[in-house]
Structures are given as C-alpha cells and as structure tokens.
C-alpha cells in the first residue's frame, strides 16, 4: 500500500535554524517507522497563512505561534537543547502514525 508522504513545517524566528537543526532528526525518526516526509523551514510570522493554503500535515516549532493553525503543532525546543528530545520525537512519531493511518 502506498502511504502518504507527510509535509512537515519546521518553524523558528528566522526560518532556517530550526529546520536545519531538526529536519534530519525528524526524517530519521519517521523513516524508522516507514513514514516518508518532507521538512520545510519557515519563519514564525508566516505560519498561519502558509498552513491555511493547505498541504501541511504537522508544524514543528521552536517559536511561539499565533493565529488559527488547524494542524497538529509540536513544540520542538528539546530537539535543539537535547533535554526531553526522546519525548518530542515520540510525539512526532505518534502524530505522524495517526495521520498516515487515518
């Protein structure tokens, strides 16, 4: 069965830092459970508009977000600091699995 490829938005204040630091971890974590994904970096002020255009499955952020964002949001600072990293990766894995099986 062909599974859906997930589009993940990695968000921080500049749009480059979080994505460069966490993209690989997120991709590896999901690949281990057979889920393909693409991680795109974005600056925090553009998230609401970007998500409303559609096509984004999960937002992973190290920046506080405002506005109406109707997809799962995962706080990802631990992926930068290392403290609680496994819990965040588990949350990403579970969220992704629900999305591809639902």
């Amino acid at each position: 069965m062909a599974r859906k490829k997930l589009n993940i938005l990695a968000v921080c204040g500049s749009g480059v830092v979080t994505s460069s630091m966490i993209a690989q971890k997120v991709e590896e974590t999901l690949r281990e459970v057979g889920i393909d994904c693409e991680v795109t970096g974005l600056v925090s002020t553009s998230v609401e508009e970007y998500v409303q255009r559609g096509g984004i499955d999960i937002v992973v952020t190290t920046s506080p977000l405002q506005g109406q964002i109707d997809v799962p949001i995962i706080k990802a600072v631990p992926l930068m600091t290392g403290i609680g990293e496994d819990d965040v990766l588990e949350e990403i894995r579970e969220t992704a699995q629900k999305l591809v099986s639902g």
Partner: protein
Amino acid sequence: MDVTTLVRSEFIRTDVEAHNADAALRYMAGTLLDASFVKPTFEQAIIDRERRNPSGLPMDGPKIAIPHTSAEHVEKSVLFFVRLAQPVEFRAMGDPDISFPVQLISMFALKEAKKIGALLEALITVYKDRDARSTLVELPDAAAIYSFLVDRLRRGRL
C-alpha cells in the same frame, strides 16, 4: 567561518551589571554599536525579537540565552559573550510563559544570513553540554572564557 574573527577577546565580558534582560541586551547592543559592528537599528531589533521569540535555552543547571536578530542590522559579524554579575530573568525559547534566571548571554551579530543556521547549531552544541555551562560560570576571567569558547567552537568544526 573562522572562529577567531567571530570570537574576540574584547567582546567577552564578566561581572556585567544589569537589572533585567532588556538592560543587558541594551548594554550589549550599545557596545557593539559603539564599536561599529552593528547598525543603530540592531538594539531595537534584538529587543523586539526577544519579545516575540525569546532566546533563553530551557536546560538543567546554569542557564544561557542566545539573543540574535537578522543580518540586515549587522555591519560585521561578531559573537558577544557576557557573564552577568547577577542572573536576570529571560523567557524560554518556544514557551514565553516560562522564564528563569540567566547569567550567561551569548549574543551574536551575523552579517551572512545564510550562515545563521550553522552558527546557532555550533553554539547550541557547545552550550547544551551542562558541564560546559558550569565551566563558563566558574572560569576566573574573560581571557579564560575566550580560550574555552574558541577551543569548543573549533572542536564543533565551526
């Protein structure tokens, strides 16, 4: 990126007095402005950004903040490391409802926007080591902190 053009002994300071985070950021931005490393817009940009995107790293042990802003406010790239005489409250990266006392501030001004990711990654790799933060709190003076930072950042292949 050459570590020693970024980390400069004159921008490693200890025993800096500041009564809150804004005062510490204004002191640091003003010092960089006086030395022509940043534009006059840098100070307000860094204060505003700290409000929108706080930069205190939520970690065990001694805490550090990594304030920065975009390249348009920068003249010359530099890292400015300050150890405060007394910690001040910074809000947590990713969660502005949480705050904690921070004694170490690692501000940078980066002229090359594309390198910001690599630099932050190198810095966080050093700072997420609790022993490194404890060492930065305990080292006797700015010269010792300079040597420590240069060594650690080189090992991180910055």
